[in-house]
């Protein structure tokens, strides 16, 4: 499994990798990361993906990784009741940059379609109007965010940053369970 950097490390690029949270991400995330605990009921299903050919985001951990899967489909998450197994590291080194692409002004937004752990397509999208250059002060302020697949490894995690849980006891329990789950 690989982490895929769908872009261009080019300076003036803001490139969006269509990471897709079903096929691609399930591919990229180590199988041992699959959620052994129930998905919290408050964890909303993602909005449907735009029709760009990417696999739709998976609504929660139990989603199957069938769409767009070409190779090395991971095993379905194995439900466990005990503490989750320590996450495993199965990725190769870091990220893989595509060839640099330079444009004179502004950004070009790419969609990288990842399937089966591989880039299968790269599309140029129209920039959304909200993505206006008007927020840019000057060249030095051009965005340098890079895009990449959500494919981190998680061995020996000390703690996890995330959106705040609500205060129900269930989620309090989940929070501490998550802390433990990520501690090696």
């Amino acid at each position, binding site marked *: 499994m690989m982490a895929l950097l769908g872009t261009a490390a080019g300076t003036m690029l803001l490139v969006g990798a269509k990471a897709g949270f079903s096929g691609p991400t399930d591919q990229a995330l180590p199988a041992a990361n699959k959620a052994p605990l129930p998905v919290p009921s408050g964890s909303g299903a993602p909005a449907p993906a735009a029709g760009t050919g990417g696999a739709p*985001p*998976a609504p929660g951990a139990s989603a199957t990784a069938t769409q767009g899967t070409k190779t090395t489909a991971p095993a379905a998450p194995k439900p466990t009741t005990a503490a989750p197994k*320590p996450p495993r590291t199965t990725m190769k080194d870091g990220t893989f940059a595509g060839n640099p692409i330079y444009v004179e002004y502004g950004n070009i937004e790419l969609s990288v379609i990842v399937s089966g752990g591989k880039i299968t397509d790269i599309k140029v999208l129209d920039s959304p109007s*909200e993505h206006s250059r008007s927020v840019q002060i000057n060249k030095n302020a051009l965005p340098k965010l890079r*895009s*990449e697949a959500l494919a981190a490894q998680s061995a020996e*995690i000390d703690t996890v940053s995330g*959106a705040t849980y609500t205060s129900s006891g269930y989620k309090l329990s989940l929070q501490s369970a998550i802390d433990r789950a990520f501690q090696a």
Partner: protein
Amino acid sequence: MPHSLVRVEHVMGMAISLDLSDDLPLPELERLADGVFGWLRLVDSVFSTYKPDSEISRLGRGELRREQCSPFVGEVLDRCAELWQETGGYFDINAGGTLDPSGYVKGWAVQRACDRLRAEGAANHCLNAGGDIFVSGSPGPRKNWRVGIRHPWEPLAVAWVLEVTDTAVATSGTYERGLHVIDPYTGKPASALRSVTVVGPELGTADAYATAALAMGLKGIDWLATLPGHECAVVTEDGRALRSDGLPVELGAADLSPGQ
């Protein structure tokens, strides 16, 4: 076996976990932890918008003047005013219709607690308040703390792993509490970004920046890239993952043996 202490308590409506990794006598570690959680409960009693009698609730209703509040209320409100300017108005403690500085208070309170721990000689610790974190010193065997950024669709997966210390990591997202961040310019919930993480020197500021970027929607991506001294990671609702080049992501992951 060196001492260390991990304590999780439920304060301010969230789980707060403290990891003290200094090799101090256990009673001393307990005393330090008591101090941290006592402080956080004090902050909650003053700033909770869920408690009608809290100073912030009474201030919001006009029953108290600012000068009548605890000294740090003014400090918090001053900083929130600065953050309102720094974020182009997107971090707005009045966006919800009532005075609510919670988006800054949590990080500020954690930062204060960590600053105090360091002053008291416990420089090695991690304090995580509902996903907003400050890490200090070393966790013990390793030099840096390894902080996962939660995968916004999979509760037990991480999207990135940071190796950091003496650093704040704040994440705002829509995946736990729904669309709770209001774009103050439209009055509507912001939905384009699913998760925003900001890494910087001070947690209150990092948290406010993350919340502001979430409120901005897609243009928050560009805005984040302009913030000096801060790094960021973003996941959009349609599944794009982006990060700044300087984000301190772990290196050499492939060398870690599995299953440890």
